[in-house]
């Protein structure tokens, strides 16, 4: 199954600060909802263990993240792969980073999730809710944490 999401966040911080934050794997890892543990493997790769809890699907799940920063500094792409129980969940999320004026920065993000195996066959609808939460909450948390400063 193939699911698509998109959204927008206005952050009360300037573009440079935002860019600095979202290129830091440790920092991005901490923006994942219900994150339990983040292990940075290199400047663009990290593993995160997050608590998942939608309906019957509950427990800690491991996700592998790859950050793909655009050279021009106004596009960040993210590849996320998770799985377990013979299933694979591949998420991709990308955000255009642009100056929104008044020291604010706009993140226009979009993402999609592709699920394969029993998780898609049996938990499809549950997964939809979870993938949406994972992607949208991550960007919402980016705003939260930067705006708080």
């Amino acid at each position: 199954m193939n699911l698509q999401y998109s959204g927008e966040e206005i952050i009360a911080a300037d573009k440079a600060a935002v860019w600095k934050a979202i290129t830091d794997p440790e920092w991005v890892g901490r923006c994942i909802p219900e994150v339990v543990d983040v292990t940075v493997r290199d400047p663009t790769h990290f593993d995160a263990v997050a608590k998942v809890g939608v309906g019957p699907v509950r427990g800690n799940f491991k996700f592998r993240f790859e950050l793909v920063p655009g050279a021009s500094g106004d596009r960040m792409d993210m590849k996320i792969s998770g799985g377990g129980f013979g299933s694979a969940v591949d998420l991709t999320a990308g955000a255009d980073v642009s100056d929104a004026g008044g020291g604010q920065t706009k993140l226009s993000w979009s993402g999609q999730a592709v699920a394969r195996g029993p998780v898609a066959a049996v938990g499809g609808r549950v997964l939809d809710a979870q993938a949406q939460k994972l992607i949208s909450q991550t960007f919402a948390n980016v705003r939260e944490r930067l705006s708080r400063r």
Partner: protein
Amino acid sequence: MIPAAFEYIRAGSADDAFAQLQRLGADARVLAGGQSLIPAMRFRLARPAVLIDINAIKELSNIGIDNGRLTLGAVARDCAIERAPWIGERRWSLLHDASRVVADPVVRQMGTIVGSLCHNDPAGDWTTVALATRAEVVVRGKAGSRTVPIDEFLVDSFTTAVAEGEMATAVRFPVPGDRTAGSYQKVERKVGDFATAAAAVQVTLAEDGTIRDAGIALSAAGPCAVRVSEAEALLKGQKPTAEVIRGAAAAASKKSAPQADLRGSVAYKKNLAGVLVSRGLRQALARLGVQS
């Protein structure tokens, strides 16, 4: 297929179960009928660290009518409704209809009404019935028990007003007047399937034969069961004519926002929403001796 390992606790009382939940928080899941949870665990989609089994708690298996409310405890089974002595009364026809098409006859021996409300599957049956009957769910939390109207209880797909560490202990259905009847119309691919589409309908007639009150809800028509308030408003105070029914059906079809899946296309499911509401209304009215 074998579930991941977990710890099992059999709760002796509602207090005991609640205390355990408070102690264990997110690691624990309440096991009632288990007819959705256990298959999910066999596929390892669900892997709770601890199961708190509430099946042995007598006080939670009660089914009783007191001060205008039918109360079903958290482990009251689907089959108990089907076999209740009063279920033949036409005022209960909506519950009766539904109790015969939930899951399959064997699953209904274990499955519970409250459990199915808490699971809140978008294509569930009891959630839809609860909306049409304006039921309320008793939720036990830190601050004691509170009563949550079903419209607030159903938050999103597989998500309810029951917060972490809380548990639903009962569902309450208002006892309808004797000029009330209902109907549950479900299209399923085969017995045991979730609804392709389903409509729960309940109408109460006034002395003058006009519709005093109507409850209309749809299954598999959104993230979770959907109340068609537009149709309810349209019916209220009206004589039950074919035209009024057509209007209600159209409203239902319009309100339905289903997902396309193996059960059918969006267009087909929206069509069904209308057809089933119209059939449900006609059957409910027929049960009240009104031909429409």
